[in-house]
């Protein structure tokens, strides 16, 4: 741990040491003559006097110099630890690690440029590395030593996600603004792709004192086309795949090869003529082969300037249609919105078959969607209990019926409480965005979670359910429980337009579909809509083995996963749980493949401001050093040592020739 100074300017006070040294060198020689009766008693003491005086004079000089140095050190307030206020520079390298940086030598060139901009790091310099994709993440927090951070940067390779520049730049700027340093700089390691700057508010300046360095816009790519996620269906003769291919450059002919499973030899090959800026859908018929219940395919173009998006993956896996038991429409309802939502989503994966709740025992593999009070009374209640105990799951919309409330309280141990109503004042908030169901809803836009307003609602007890959303007043609005009564997703509101306009809003169908899909334990994507890198995947079991079968991640050891997982690289993944296995195709985000660079000037240069750093901010920033110094106030010791030196000097100087 090194020693630092809170006010190093006071160390200039050590120059005062020159004064006693000067006085020592120019000290007054005796010029006065004193007549004395006899020197016979003085000559005897003179030699010893000379030696001791010489020693004392040097000792006095030493003590004076030490006292001055210690006093200067006292005022400079020393402390052990990193100096928070005296760094020479603080640099944050904002790294666009999206897969567009894999194009040609772009990554190597930009990384070398960033190293040059960061410059030679001095001991006091701090460098931070901030990744842009999939969201701003510190690879090396700002207090990292410069050489360590640059070593990390040297080992870094671009990822497979898409990136947004503004959030990372804002985070870097705010962090730098709160860092005490003589110079604060952001070095942007990115390719100025249009998509990365899209939506950036160039009018909003960075905090004062933060400087930016941007590289030049790279030159255009000569050949760039991307394979979009294909869809694959089973036919009587084999498989039929539809492969979208998008061309971003001039017209070109590309070769599309299809590989099955882990084979290295393509099973299909064809040349595709792509017009300039054209998106072409290429149908491919593939042989059935010897596949039984599943197969995965890799569709690869011959390499161009950006090879990362020249491959896409598709999975086919047999899946039995799941059954959704829908209870009768509650009396007085004008329309069956839930039934309509389920019907409209029937074409999506996973495919579901909606049937009315039977008067006999309910199949335990099914999902029950219940909103009628009669479903919780009499024989229906007993069938429901058996269904849930047998492994079934239920989506329950609370309508306030007495039988329903009693069943929830007695069987599910959920004592719902009616909330006071005053117009459409009840609103959902505080969504659990990390829950797979909510994450799926908010994947495209968090606006999907806003404006859920109701005229009536029932608050669920927090200690009885795992909350997915809360009422604006108090209590849980949507909760999940997996107790003795089985797996239940309870909505503390009715899917009825008498209580809300929500059933008529755009988020109603996705919510019902994703809720059912979630309860079915299947992802909403499947082969029709493959998952994207960086998005959360819902896994069909609490725990299982997760491994990559194809793609950049293949060959890495299998890991234990459950509930959900976010793949960071494209490919085909297998999730094995029990005796079952499920395949997932993960592909790249489409927008990142567009190599178009920002062409409207260089507005990022205007993010900097020339305003002066507020003094209050500097004081607040220096607080860290003050706290570090106050934890171990060394200046007391220096002051005490200076006092001792001064006292010794006074005592010795009085007995020393001046």
């Amino acid at each position: 741990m090194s020693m630092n100074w809170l006010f190093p300017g006071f160390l200039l006070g050590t120059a005062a040491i020159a004064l006693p040294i000067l006085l020592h060198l120019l000290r007054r020689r005796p010029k006065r003559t004193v007549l004395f009766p006899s020197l016979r008693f003085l000559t005897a003491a003179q030699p010893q006097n000379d030696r001791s005086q010489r020693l004392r004079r040097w000792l006095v000089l030493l003590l004076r110099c030490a006292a001055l140095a210690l006093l200067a050190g006292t005022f400079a307030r020393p402390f052990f630890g990193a100096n928070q206020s005296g760094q020479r520079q603080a640099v944050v390298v904002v790294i666009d690690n999206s897969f567009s940086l894999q194009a040609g030598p772009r990554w190597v060139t930009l990384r070398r440029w960033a190293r040059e901009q960061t410059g030679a790091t001095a001991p006091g310099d701090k460098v931070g590395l901030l990744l842009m994709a999939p969201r701003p993440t510190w690879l090396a927090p700002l207090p990292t030593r410069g050489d360590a951070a640059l070593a990390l940067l040297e080992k870094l390779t671009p990822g497979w996600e898409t990136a947004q520049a503004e959030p990372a730049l804002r985070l870097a700027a705010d962090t730098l603004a709160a860092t005490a340093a003589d110079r604060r700089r952001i070095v942007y390691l990115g390719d100025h792709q249009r998509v990365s700057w899209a939506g950036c508010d160039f009018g909003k300046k960075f905090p004062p004192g933060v400087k930016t360095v941007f590289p030049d816009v790279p030159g255009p790519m000569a050949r760039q086309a991307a394979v979009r996620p294909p869809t694959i269906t089973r036919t009587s003769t084999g498989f039929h795949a539809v492969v979208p291919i998008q061309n971003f450059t001039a017209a070109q002919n590309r070769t599309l090869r299809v590989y099955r499973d882990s084979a290295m030899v393509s099973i299909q090959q064809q040349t595709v003529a792509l017009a300039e800026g054209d998106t072409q859908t290429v149908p491919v018929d593939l042989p059935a082969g010897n596949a039984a219940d599943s197969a995965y395919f890799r569709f690869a173009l011959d390499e161009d300037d950006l090879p990362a998006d020249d491959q896409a993956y598709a999975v086919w896996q047999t899946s039995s249609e799941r059954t959704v038991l829908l209870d009768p429409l509650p009396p007085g309802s004008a329309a069956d919105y839930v039934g309509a939502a389920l019907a409209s989503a029937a074409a999506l994966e996973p495919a579901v078959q909606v049937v009315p709740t039977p008067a006999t025992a309910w199949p335990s593999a099914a999902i029950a969607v219940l909103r009628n009070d009669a479903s919780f009374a009499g024989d229906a209640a007993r069938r429901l209990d058996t269904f849930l105990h047998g492994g079934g799951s239920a989506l329950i919309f609370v309508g306030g019926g007495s039988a329903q409330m009693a069943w929830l309280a007695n069987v599910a141990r959920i004592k719902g409480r009616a909330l006071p109503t005053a117009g459409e004042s009840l609103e959902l908030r505080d969504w659990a965005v990390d829950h797979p169901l909510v994450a799926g809803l908010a994947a495209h836009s968090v606006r999907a979670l806003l404006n859920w307003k109701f005229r009536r609602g029932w608050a669920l007890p927090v200690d009885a359910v795992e909350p997915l959303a809360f009422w604006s007043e108090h209590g849980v609005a949507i909760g999940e429980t997996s107790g003795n009564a089985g797996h239940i997703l309870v909505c503390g509101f009715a899917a009825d337009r008498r209580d809300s306009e929500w059933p008529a809003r755009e988020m109603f169908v996705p919510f019902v579909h994703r809720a059912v899909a979630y309860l079915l334990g299947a992802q909403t994507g499947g082969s029709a809509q493959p998952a994207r890198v960086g998005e959360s995947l819902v896994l069909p079991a609490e725990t299982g083995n997760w491994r990559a079968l194809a793609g950049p991640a293949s060959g890495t050891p299998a890991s234990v996963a459950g509930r959900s997982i976010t793949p960071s690289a494209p490919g085909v993944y297998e999730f094995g749980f029990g005796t079952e296995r499920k395949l997932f195709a993960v592909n790249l985000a489409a927008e990142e493949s567009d190599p178009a660079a920002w062409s409207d000037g260089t507005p990022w240069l205007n993010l900097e401001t020339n305003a002066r750093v507020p003094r209050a901010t500097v004081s607040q920033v220096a607080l860290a050093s003050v706290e570090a110094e106050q934890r171990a106030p060394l200046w007391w010791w220096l002051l005490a040592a200076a006092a001792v030196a001064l006292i010794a000097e006074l005592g010795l100087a009085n007995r020393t020739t001046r």
Partner: protein
Amino acid sequence: MSAGEKIAAEDAADPALSYPLRPRRTALARHAGARPALAPLDMAELAALGSLPLRARRLADAVGAGRHRSRRKGPSVEFADYRDYQPGDDLRRVDWRLYGRTDRVQIRDAYEETPLRVQLLLDVSASMSYSSRPGLLTKLDLARSVLGALALLIRRQRDACGIGLLTDDLLQYLPPSGSPGRLRAVWGTLATPTLGTPTALAVALERAAAVAPRSCLLVIASDFYENPSALAAVLHRLHFERKDALALHIVDPAEEDFDFTDPAEFADAETPARLQLDPVAAARAYRAAFAAHQQALTEVFRGRGFDYLVLRTDASPLAALAAYLARRAGKA
């Protein structure tokens, strides 16, 4: 007229011996024979008195000494004791009144007054002219004043007084004499300026001892920058010759205290020797050496039964006069 009144009348007739200050004690009081208490003496006042006679008289008056009595008994007017008549005694000394009252024949003894020969010796070497600060008497001036006062006391007591000046030899010498003009001669000799010669006190004392009469009192005023062992031989001779001695070691305060603060080049008053010195640092060793020298002198003098007194130029010298009187009383 008594002897004291006679001396006072003589002094009053001599304008050089006129009293600048009123006498502290009357002649009658001095005749009473009581030991007077030493009156306080302001040394600044003494220094302000410009001439030697004035200082000498001021000192003599301050000590308040009168006539002394001899320890020898004889046919005098002052009663001393009675004793039985012995054949051969002078019948005139029988106290017939006592015989008439007691029928015993007693001889009446009285104190006999005898003159004392005092040889004053003054060191006039260059080191004696030292004074550490303005307003302070030099060692030589103090010695002159003290010896001058002693000469006056001696004169008043009708004793014989002589003077000798010492440097590296016996410079001037006047043998003790009880003549009326001897006082002025002594004062005149005391006024001789210093010659800047170095001290060889043992040699000079040796010469003085050779010429001084037997059974005299030598009063030596000097700063005694001499080897005590060299002095010891001379003092041994004085003791052998039944001479008495009173040493007055005249010391400047700076010599004893050595309270100099500023570094300086110290120059010897008697030799060309010079020494660059930090006095603060050297003070301790100097004081120790000077004290050891004084101690050696004390042992040398008192070992032979002589008196040794230290007189600082910033302190009253009356103790020296009192010591002389005590010595005189013991010798008479």
